[in-house]
Structure formats: structure tokens, C-alpha cells
């Protein structure tokens, strides 16, 4: 699994940001994760619980916003969210598309006191 290293990076970003803003406690962290990535939110949560002990983020709520797969049809330019594994454009039925969303992985915001 690759969530361990990802959780380490996540915690470092949170600690660095909190330090810069001189906060006492981080109570909520919002992470955006794209559906095309292989990252499993529950797995990140599991590691986070242990790793965040004795840090400014201990006990913080970890919320994930899942971003859907978004495609742009290479034939007619329509942007769409595919409903099945077979990606065909709802306008022209072409299956040629560029991936424009769904591979995100970033920390969006913190709630702090």
C-alpha cells in the first residue's frame, strides 16, 4: 500500500501550515482525492490516527472530498463525467477523450483554533 508515505506527506503539510499560521490546534483537515487515483481514504485515515499522535493535528477530523473522473471529448469538445467504465461522449458517442479531472490529491483547507 502506498498510503503510509502519503499520510506522512499530508501530516507534514498540515504541521508546516499550522506552524506558519501560529495555531494551537488543528481540528479538521479537508483533503481532495480524485477517483482515478489509487488512494484509499479509509487507509489514509487509519495511518493518520497513529501518526498524528502528539502532534498539533492529533484528534483532527480528516474529511475527503472525492473528485469524479472528468473527460473532454477529443472529437466535439464536450466535457463530461462518465457513468460507466466505457467512456463515450454523451453528445457524439466518440470514445476518444482526454482526462481532465479525477487524479487530484491535495490538502485543501484546515480548521484551526
Amino acid at each position, binding site marked *: *500500500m*502506498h498510503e*503510509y*508515505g*502519503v499520510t*506522512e*506527506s*499530508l501530516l*507534514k*503539510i498540515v504541521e508546516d*501550515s*499550522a506552524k506558519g*499560521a501560529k*495555531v494551537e490546534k488543528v*481540528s479538521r483537515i479537508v*483533503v481532495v482525492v480524485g477517483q*482515478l*487515483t*489509487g*488512494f484509499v481514504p479509509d487507509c489514509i485515515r487509519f495511518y493518520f490516527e497513529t501518526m498524528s499522535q502528539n502532534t498539533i493535528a492529533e484528534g483532527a477530523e480528516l474529511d475527503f472530498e472525492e473528485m469524479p473522473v472528468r473527460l473532454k471529448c*477529443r472529437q466535439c469538445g464536450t466535457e463530461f463525467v462518465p457513468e460507466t*467504465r*466505457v*467512456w463515450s461522449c454523451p453528445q457524439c458517442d466518440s*470514445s*476518444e*477523450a*482526454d*482526462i481532465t479531472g479525477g*487524479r487530484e*490529491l*491535495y*490538502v*485543501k*483547507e*484546515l*480548521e*484551526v*483554533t
Partner: protein
Amino acid sequence: MKKIEIVQGILDANQATAEGNRAVFDRNNCLALNIMAAPGAGKTSVVLRTIEGLGPDVATGVVEGDVVSTVDAERVRDVAQAVVQINTKGMPESCALVADMVDAALAKLPLADLDLILIENVGNLICPTEFNLGEHLKIVVASTPEGDDKPLKYPLIFADADAVIINKSDLLLYVDFSMDTFMRSVRDLNPNVPFFPMSCKTGEGVSTWIDWLRGKLNSK
């Protein structure tokens, strides 16, 4: 209660190390390939055929990524100029190589003497997609017994590929694999990617791949 907007990529640190690795490759005039595939597709066989096909005038170093064993490194040791084994067990990421591991491996390779570096990733079609290593080219190896639906199941790895090798072409008669279906699914995501159907077992098709790679080596 107040909010702090951050918007910082969790993989930024990996990306920064990957860019450092790329600079090391470039400084030493080495072309680096990240070879990715499912377990058993034939990554190590592709590495062996590639070294053999390029011949002695191309000095090749190999970075072998594996969870625990050194089996692949042992197969490659006799033919490559230099081999470094990375075992990912016990590391933060066990399912894929990450840029830090490659950074550490590069210190053990005689980079100044090498023209080509083949990085054999851990067998997996999902995790390696997330971690840039600093490579110049991403090579995905598919194989006919895996079925022609893999691009639908693992779209990212095929969307990012700079070349797709379709190994075990000698088994086409025996397995349900339509070359047309497979190539169409990949091209839907990645329209200009070159395909190299080949059999590492018989050697069929290998020379087309070698010619393409030689072109990349000459233009680096």
C-alpha cells in the same frame, strides 16, 4: 474556529525529488525509462531483451524494484553494466517505487559510464502511476494473457504511457486477446502512443522496439 486555505499537493515532495533525479540523468547524459506492468507481464524479460537487442555499444544500468526478492536482479546481473536492487518491503511505499528510492539507487550506479537506465518498477498497474521517478519515458508492458480489457480497468497508466509493449504475442492463438480492441482502448486515451507487440520468448517483434529506443537514445 478559523479556516486556513492551503491547496498543496500531497505528492509535491515526490515530484521535487523526481525533478532532482531527472537533472542527474540529464547531467550524465543518460536516458531513463520507467518500466511498469502487472506482475508476470514480462518486465524483466523486456529488460533482458532490450539490453541484448541494443548490444554492447549501449551501456545500460538497471534499477530493479521488488517487494522482497532479488530474483530479478540476479537474472539481469550477467548482462547489464550495473544493477541496483531496491526492496520496497518495510519502506513507506511497498507497492511502487517512489522518487526517493530511485535517488538512493542512483548513488550506487556508475552514471558517467551509462547511456541508458532501465528502472523496473514493482509489478502493479495502479500505484506506480502516482509517483514520478524523474524518468524520461514511461513504458507500460501489457501481455496477451492478461486480456484486452486492461486499459478500461487501469486507464491512468495507459493514458500516461510513452510507449506500450504488448508481450507474449506468441500466445495470441491460445488466449482471448484482440489486438484491435486493446489498441483502440489505449488510443482513446492516448492517441499517438506507439505499440510494440512482441514475444520476449521467441524474439518476434523485439527489433522494432529496439529501433524505436535507439532513436530515442540518439536524440537525447
